[in-house]
C-alpha cells in the first residue's frame, strides 16, 4: 500500500490535489489545537495582559505589575495564599493549627473571593450557553437576552406565589427561569431550522426583545412594577420573597455571601461534558457542528439538533439569570437591565475556553476575577485611577477575544520563529 508517511497527522488529504497539497492554515491550526491544547489560550491571555499593562503604563505611568497585583487582591484570589495557623473549628478544641487558607469567614480576602465566585456562577453558565451552541456549529450571541429572560421569570415567580413552601418555590422558580431561557433561545434555533434565518442576527434581535420587555414590565407603570409604598416612581420589580432566596453557604448573607447556586454552576460544567461526550444527543450535536452534511447523510436530523442545541444553550443562560436573582440580586430594576452585560462576557469565556468544560471553568474564573478585582469598591487610587479600572477589564476582555480570533496570527508568528531556527540549523550544518 502507498500510504503517506505517519508524520503526526499534519497532512489532510484534499481530493483535488491529493497529498501534493500543502496543509492549509486552518488544517494546521486544527492540529495545533489538538497538540497545543492549553498553550494557545494561555499565550493569548498572557499577550492580552501584556498589552493591557502597556496601556496602564502609558496612561497612568504606574507600574503595571502593581496594578495587576491590586486586581489580584481585589478578586480575593490571594485568599488561597494566606497560609498560616488558623482555628479550624475542630470540635472541643480551640487550638490553632497550620492550614493552607484563612478559615475565618470574614477576612477581607474571603469577602472578595465570595464576590468573585458569585460572578463566576453567572459566567460559567453564560459561557456554557455560548459554548454549547458553538459545538453545534452556531454562534449564540443571545446569551444576554436568554439571561434576562431567565432573570425576569425568576423575579416574577420568586416574588409571587407566597403560599408555596421554600424548597418548592425555589425549584419552581429555577425550572421556570431555565425554561424561559430555553424557549427564548429555541426561537432562534427554530428560525434557523425552518427558514434558515442566521442565528447571529436573530439572537442579537432577541436580545433587544428581552431588554425592552424587561423595561416595559418593571418600568414606570409597567405590569410588574413593584407595589411597595411610594414605589410608583421607582422602576424596579418586587423583591423576591424570603423563602425563595438561595441559601448562603459561605460568608454572611447580609454581606452578599456565596449562595448555593455555585454548586449548580459546577454541576452544569459536569452536565455539559457528559451531555457532549457520553450521550447520543451530544454525538448528534457534535456531528452537526462539525459537518451538517455528513450528519444528515448519517441519518441525523440537522433541524432538530439546531433547535435542541439552542434550547440547551438558552437553558444555561436562563439558569444564570435565575441564580443571580435568587442568589444575590433579589430584584430587577430597569437600569440593571440596561447596563448588565454578563451574557456578552460569556462569549469571551467560551472563546477563551475553547468550548470545553474545563476551559470554560478556567476562563470564567479569569474573567470573574478581572470583573471583581477592578470593580471600584476595591480600588486604591494610589495604584491606578478608578476611571481606568473597569475599562481595563473591558480592554483585556476585548484583547482576549481579538486574539482568540487571531490565534492564527499567533501561530503564524510561532511558525516564523520555528522556520528561522530551522534555517539557522541548516546554514550551520
Amino acid at each position, binding site marked *: *500500500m*502507498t*500510504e*503517506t*508517511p*505517519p*508524520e*503526526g*497527522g*499534519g*497532512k*489532510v*488529504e484534499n*481530493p*483535488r*490535489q*491529493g*497529498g*501534493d*497539497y*500543502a*496543509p492549509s492554515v486552518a*488544517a*494546521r491550526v*486544527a492540529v495545533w489545537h*489538538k497538540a497545543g491544547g492549553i498553550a494557545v489560550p494561555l499565550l493569548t491571555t498572557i499577550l492580552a495582559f501584556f498589552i493591557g499593562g502597556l496601556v496602564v503604563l502609558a496612561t497612568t505611568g504606574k507600574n503595571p505589575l502593581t496594578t495587576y497585583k491590586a486586581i489580584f487582591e481585589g478578586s480575593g484570589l490571594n485568599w488561597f495564599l494566606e497560609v498560616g495557623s488558623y482555628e479550624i473549628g475542630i470540635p472541643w478544641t480551640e487550638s490553632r493549627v497550620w492550614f493552607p487558607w484563612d478559615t475565618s469567614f470574614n477576612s477581607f480576602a474571603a469577602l472578595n473571593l465570595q464576590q468573585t465566585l458569585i460572578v463566576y456562577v453567572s459566567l460559567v453558565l453564560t459561557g456554557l450557553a455560548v459554548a454549547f451552541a458553538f459545538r453545534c456549529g452556531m454562534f449564540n450571541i443571545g446569551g444576554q437576552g436568554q439571561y434576562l429572560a431567565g432573570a425576569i421569570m425568576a423575579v416574577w415567580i420568586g416574588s409571587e406565589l407566597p403560599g408555596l413552601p421554600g424548597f418548592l418555590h425555589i425549584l419552581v422558580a429555577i425550572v421556570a427561569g431555565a425554561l424561559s431561557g430555553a424557549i427564548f433561545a429555541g426561537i432562534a434555533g427554530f428560525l434557523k431550522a425552518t427558514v434558515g434565518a442566521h442565528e447571529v442576527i436573530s439572537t442579537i434581535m432577541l436580545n433587544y426583545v428581552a431588554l425592552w420587555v424587561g423595561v416595559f414590565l418593571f418600568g414606570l407603570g409597567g405590569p410588574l412594577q413593584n407595589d411597595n409604598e411610594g414605589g410608583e416612581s421607582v422602576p424596579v420589580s418586587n423583591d423576591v420573597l424570603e423563602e425563595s432566596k438561595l441559601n448562603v453557604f459561605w460568608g454572611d448573607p447580609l454581606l452578599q455571601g456565596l449562595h448555593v447556586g455555585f454548586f449548580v454552576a459546577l454541576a452544569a460544567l459536569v452536565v455539559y461534558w457528559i451531555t457532549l*461526550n*457520553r*450521550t*447520543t*444527543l*451530544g*454525538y*448528534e450535536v*457534535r*456531528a452537526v457542528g*462539525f*459537518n451538517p*452534511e*455528513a*450528519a*444528515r*447523510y*448519517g*441519518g*441525523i*436530523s440537522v433541524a432538530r439538533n439546531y433547535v435542541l442545541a439552542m434550547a440547551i444553550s438558552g437553558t444555561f443562560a436562563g439558569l444564570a439569570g435565575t441564580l443571580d436573582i435568587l442568589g444575590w440580586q433579589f430584584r430587577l430594576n430597569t437600569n440593571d437591565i440596561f447596563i448588565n452585560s454578563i451574557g456578552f462576557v460569556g462569549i469571551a469565556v467560551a472563546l477563551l475556553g475553547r468550548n470545553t468544560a474545563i476551559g470554560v471553568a478556567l476562563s470564567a474564573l479569569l474573567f470573574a476575577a478581572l470583573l471583581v478585582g477592578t470593580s471600584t469598591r476595591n480600588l486604591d487610587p494610589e495604584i491606578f485611577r478608578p476611571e481606568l479600572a473597569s475599562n481595563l477589564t473591558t480592554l483585556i476582555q476585548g484583547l482576549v477575544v481579538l486574539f482568540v480570533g487571531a490565534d492564527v496570527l499567533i501561530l503564524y508568528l510561532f511558525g516564523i520563529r520555528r522556520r528561522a531556527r530551522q534555517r539557522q540549523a541548516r546554514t550551520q550544518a
Partner: protein
Amino acid sequence: MDEPPVLELRGITKRFPGIVANDGVSFDLRPGEVHALLGENGAGKSTLMNVLYGLYTPEEGEIRIKGTPTRMSSPRDAIDAGIGMVHQHFMLIPVMTVAENIVLANEPTRERVLLDYDAAAQRVRDLSDAFKFRIDPNARVEDITVGQQQRVEILKALYRNADILILDEPTAVLTPQEAQELFEILGTLTREGMSIIFISHKLNEVTEIADRITVLRRGKKIETLPAAGATEESLARLMVGREVLLRVEKGASTPTEPLLQIQDLHVTDDRGIEKVRGLSLDVRGGEIVGIAGVDGNGQTELIDAIAGLMGSDSGRVLVAGEDVTNESAKDCLDTGLGHIPEDRQRRGLVLDFSLAENLALHDYDSQPASRLGWLFPKRLVARAQGLLEQFDVRGGGPQTHAGGLSGGNQQKVVLAREIDRNPKVLIAAQPTRGLDVGAIEFVHRRLVEERDEGRAILLVSLELDEILSLSDRILVIYEGQIVGEFAPGVSEEELGVAMTGGGRKEAA
C-alpha cells in the same frame, strides 16, 4: 531528439511541515514533446508543477528555461518565461465571454483605458482558427461545455505567448469523446512547436498521448522512460512500487430477485430544475449495475432520492420490496440501504470525529453503541478496532481523527461502515474518486466480494473504465433518464455516444 531541453528542473526539493513533497526531483522537457508526469495522489506531481509555476518556492534546486537559470517567484514570472498552466479546476469567470476571459489582464485597449473588445475577439478568433479550436469568442463561458472551457484555458495560455503548456489532470472532467478531441488538439500544438507537460494518474491515456513519461513516487523521481514500449502494467508497478492487478478479477454473477427497484422517479433539485425525469431501473441481488453518464445528468439527484436525502416529486423507490419513497435518510438506512457517498470528505465522514465515532455514524443510537441515549465510547472503540483491521485501514487507530488519514484510507473507513451494516442494497457513488491505484484495487475487489455475498450494488461513476470493469449490466443516464442498457463487453465509444444522447432511439 538531441535538441537542448526548453525546460529543465534540477534537484528540486520542496518540504512542507512533516512531509517532503519533492525530494531532489529532476525533470526536463524537450521542444515539441508531450512529457507525461505520472504518479499517484500525493506523489508530488502538483507540487512540482506549482514550483515551476512560481506558486511555491523550493528549498533546493534550480529551474532553467532554455538553458538560463530562472527564478520563479510568482506566476507572473512563469508567464513571462512562456509557461502556461491549465488547472484541473478552470480559472474562468463564468459570466464573461470567451474573448473577455482570454484577454483578461492583457487587454487590448483604445486610448489606453477602454477595452477594445472587437480587437480582442478578432485575436481570439485568429488563434482559435489557427489551432482548429472551434470556439466562438463571443459565447459566454457559462454557456459552453466543459471541454470547450478547457480549450478556452489553453487559448488563454497561447494568447500570452506560452510555448510550454502544463495540463493538470486534463481529462478528469471530460467525456471519452472530448478527451479524444483534446488529444488531437495537443497533437496540433506539438506540431507547431509547443512543449507540453501532461499530469495524470491514468495509465492508458499516458501511454497513448505522451512521448516520454516520468514517474514520481512519494516525492521522488523513480524513472523517466520513453512511452514507446511502456506497458500499463510496467507503469503501474513503477507508480505503486509493487505488482498491481489492473483488471478486476470476478466470476460470473448469479443474480437473484430485485432488491432495489425504482419506478418512474421524478426529482427536482433546489433550483427548481427537474434533474431526474421518469427514471426506472432494477438492481437484483448478486449483481453490480453500473450507471454511466456525463456529470450533471441527474446521477447525484438519483442517489440522493434513493438515500432519502432529497425528496422526489413522483415515482417509487423500493428497497428489498419495501417502499421507502420520500422516507427519511434514517428509515432508508434501516430498511437495508448502504450508501458510499460521492464526496467522502464533505458527506461521508466527519473529518473532526475520530474513526471510532465515524464508524458509528449510522448506528450510534442503537445497541450496542448506546442505550437509552447513553453513549458507550469504549464500545465504539472496540468495534472500530476490529473493523479497521478487517478493512486494512492504515495511518491511524480508532482515536485518530478521520481528517488525518489519506484519501484511500478514508474511503476504506466509509466502506467498512457501510458494509458492516450488512445492507441488502449498496449504492457506490464514485467509490474510487481521487484514490490511487492500490486503493482502487482494494475498493474494487471489495465491491465484487459484496456482490458475491448477494447484495445488490448500484455503481455510479464518471470513470468509464470503472463502469466497464466492474458492472454486470451497464445503464446509461442522460438528462435524467436511462437511455440504454449494455452488456459489460460494450466499447467505450458506443457508451460515449449514448452518454451524449446519441443512442436514444435504441433505448431499452
